[in-house]
């Protein structure tokens, strides 16, 4: 049984992709972020280009900073963004 995750993009990533996010069906349960990103890049030339051009992309899983080795479950909220520049 697989399901989908909700992906959000912020700042330069959002702008370059021309979208705020997308719904993605997971290839299987318990997918590492890195594997999911690889899959997305294979099927989306624009996304591949933008991810290749953006250094140090950060990921948050369910609004909590994670790593690209963190595993994603159906129903999770994923977010990709550049290094944060608040304050």
């Amino acid at each position, binding site marked *: 049984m697989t399901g989908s995750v909700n992906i959000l993009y*912020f700042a330069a990533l959002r702008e370059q992709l021309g979208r705020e996010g997308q719904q993605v069906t997971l290839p299987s349960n318990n997918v590492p972020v890195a594997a999911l990103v690889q899959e997305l890049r294979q099927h989306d030339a624009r996304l591949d280009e933008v991810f290749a051009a953006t250094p140090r992309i950060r990921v*948050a899983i369910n*609004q909590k900073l994670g790593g690209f080795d963190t595993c994603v479950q159906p129903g999770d909220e994923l977010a990709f963004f*550049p*290094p*944060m*520049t*608040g304050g």
Partner: protein
Amino acid sequence: MPVRVLVQQAAFDTGAETARLSGLSEQVGGMGLFIGQVRGGDGLLSLTLEHYPGMTETILHQLAQEAMERFNLLGCTLIHRVGRLEVGAPIVLVGTAAAHRGAALSATSFLIDRLKTGAPFWKKEEFANGHTAWVDAREEDEHAAAAWMHTAPSSS
């Protein structure tokens, strides 16, 4: 409520925020404040602040709670503005209240250092010539945030 966290478009009232911290407890002996504003130069017109609604508030609350415990604070305030802010406009207010000045001022530094690179805000610059650019994270900001990891907790 000792902790106050706000993410908002509107400006904040530094006097009112100070009064709130001052009145939290008779034990308050010192308050530290940091206010960041849009610095001009090189033809900059404005910054536009984007954030990750929901996650931002969670992270700021966690940061505030960490400061409360680490520096034995009596209260603290984090207010961060979002949206388009022109040169000279206030962006962020960090306020702390403690029994003694050392804890209040250290906690103020801790909070702004950690907030800069640890909370999901992003800044886009807009220049008079029409050019726009996302602000790059500064390495020294990441070092400043990391330095707090290697510092022994202290409430002095």
